[in-house]
């Protein structure tokens, strides 16, 4: 146990595809289903960054089905990185991203790196969205990625970029 560990949080609305993204990235899940009572699941993945082995503990926090239900913010505490996952078919995509960012930074330090994953791009390959205003308001966001768990598009790249930043 002499490798470094980092805690990564995935948050996003209900059914945006967080679990599928993790399933694509990780070969070893603690449980594939959410522990429905406590609304989260944890997976781990070892990755090699610059000859250094890093153990990622990925906390997949169940999205609220409706906006009234509260997501347990204590799970987000002490994270080293966060991926905000949004569904490209969502009508309020920008508002969703901002509300998750605010949730996360209300319990974490401002300098924790974040990534925006615009998921399900396989269903509409021509989709683009301008979220430059969000990126400029939240300087800790490293980048946005158009991702697809189905086609394995940008999943590995996204986690690698975040890991590199977390090791800095």
């Amino acid at each position, binding site marked *: 146990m002499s490798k470094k560990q980092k805690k990564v949080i995935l948050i996003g609305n209900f059914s945006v595809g967080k679990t599928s993204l993790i399933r694509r990235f990780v070969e070893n899940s*603690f449980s594939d289903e959410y522990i429905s009572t406590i609304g989260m699941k944890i997976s*781990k993945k070892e990755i090699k960054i610059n000859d250094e082995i890093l*153990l990622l503990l990925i906390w997949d926090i169940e999205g609220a089905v409706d906006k009234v239900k509260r997501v347990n913010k204590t799970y987000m505490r002490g994270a080293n990185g966060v991926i905000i996952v949004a569904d490209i078919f969502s009508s309020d995509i920008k508002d969703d991203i901002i509300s998750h960012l605010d949730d996360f930074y209300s319990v974490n330090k401002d300098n924790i790196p974040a990534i925006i994953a615009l998921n399900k791009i396989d269903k509409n390959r021509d989709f683009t969205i301008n979220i430059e205003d969000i990126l400029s308001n939240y300087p800790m966001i490293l980048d946005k990625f158009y991702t697809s768990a189905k086609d394995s598009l940008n999943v590995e790249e996204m986690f690698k970029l975040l890991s590199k930043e977390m090791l800095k």
Partner: protein
Amino acid sequence: MDKDFEKLRKLLVNKEIEQLDNIILRVQKIENHHKKDILIEHLSTLITEILSKNIKNNPQQIYSIVHPFVIKGLKEELTNSSNSEISKVLAPLISSSMKEQVHEQKDSIVDALYPIMGNMISKYVTNAFKEMMVDVNHKLQDTLSSQTIKRKIKSKIYNISEAELILKESNIAKVKSIFLIHKESGMLILDIHRDNNEIDEPEMVASMLSAIKSFINDWISNHDKMSEVSEIEYGNSSIIIESAGSSYLAVVMDGKIDFKMQEQISLTLTKIVLNHSAQIANYDGDPDTIEKEKIISILSTLFITKDKDIPTDNKFPILSTIILLFFLLTPILWNGYSYYQEYLIEKKESSILSIIKKDKIKIYDFKIKTLKNTTYIDGMVLTKFDKNRLYKILSNVDVVTNISYVDYSPINKYIQLQLNKILLDFNSKYSSNIEYNISGDNDIYIKGAIINSVAKDKLTQYISKIFKDYNINFDINILPKLKERIYFDISSSEIKEKYNKLLDNISRLSNIHNSYNIKITGYTDILGSSIFNTNLSSKRANTVKDALIKRGINKNSIIITNLATPPKDISDVSKERELSRCVGFNWEMKSSE
């Protein structure tokens, strides 16, 4: 002929032929347009009509046509994908209807589940018993160990069966694994395991445990702010959670944890926090930032100390038995000595327990332990009074007492209610103004002034009797009688100089007994009209009032009244006219606002 036929045809079916021609024309028109969609549109309205008519008139037939397709579709949907649309739609319906059914038909659900649950439970219990029996057999086979001899002696002396003692031993807590976890992130700082039996994925265990812990704490914090999860039990094992600073310890144990062990875990974490708090607080997953070896050496003590109590797996082969017999005297003596020590400890502890029991003091979280010839008791009582009483009754016993008391106690509230009632009755009966005050949990102060000593004695006796277990401090003064009066000349309300001393005295007394008012009553002799006399007695009372105010008495502490008659104690009003022209003084209870 042809003409006739044509005539006849026209007569008979001319209308039908016209209609037919019309239809043919329309169909041709549609065909000519080559517009299938128009045709479909025309027909589709018809089909809908036909279907709805048929559903209405012959539902059974429609059902038998559609039924096989629905079933087939459902089957495919359910087998092909575990996360089908149908499951998504049905899942909430099923769970809510199950909830409803459990709520409304609890008994029939229990009946249905009982055979399955019953089997599961009995299987679990059987397994647990099997494991325990293996352990017990193991100990019985180990017939010649020092532990066994000790057990046999103990069994004879305490008159407890050997089997019971073995069962007790089987249940001794044993630390299996220790995890030191960063509290905020849930990341594992380090983990150690008994006999280096490492477990798979300790980081995942740490994270999951933290998630469960924060879930429970988050839930509890909405209900009870003081609590935090401290133990998770599973089967015969438990995870003891001890939090401090930025980290927490999760200690996985077999068997029942006792007070001693709990304390040791807490002390161990305190030691780690004291020496390594900065590194732990800043831990961000990099193991090189932690002084691992030092922390492990502290944590390892949790394995070692407990091992002393745990009977080891010593199997004595024949050779060892001979050697043992050779040195038999030594272990017997040693066992005798250690038994004697244990006996003394248990005797002492039980005598302390009986003393406490005799005095009927209820102690919460009571713990008693003896370490190196010193006996310690810990716990909590309701009141300071109970605490003092406990210290008093244990003052002659050699014991280190560490008893705290709850600040707020229902007993205190009870006393307040009692005293309120008693004093309310008393004050209204004797026009007195006695108050109480409770200090700490066993000191009651009764304070005030009262008209006469009979009433005072009554009150002190009554309260002393009711609250005999408490420390009561009475500070009750009897009010001095205000017998002296100020006498006036005929028709005069002027105060003579000789009364200055009396007025000074009254003003002094009023300041001392400031919970009472001074009542001034003006009187006159029997001569003169009643209007004149009323004015005169009022003037006399007011002059005295002013004189007292000048001497520093608060005007709110003075009540004046006046009568156009002599005082009642004047026996011969016609002769004692000089004594009638006066002002008298009395004490009167202040009305409570």
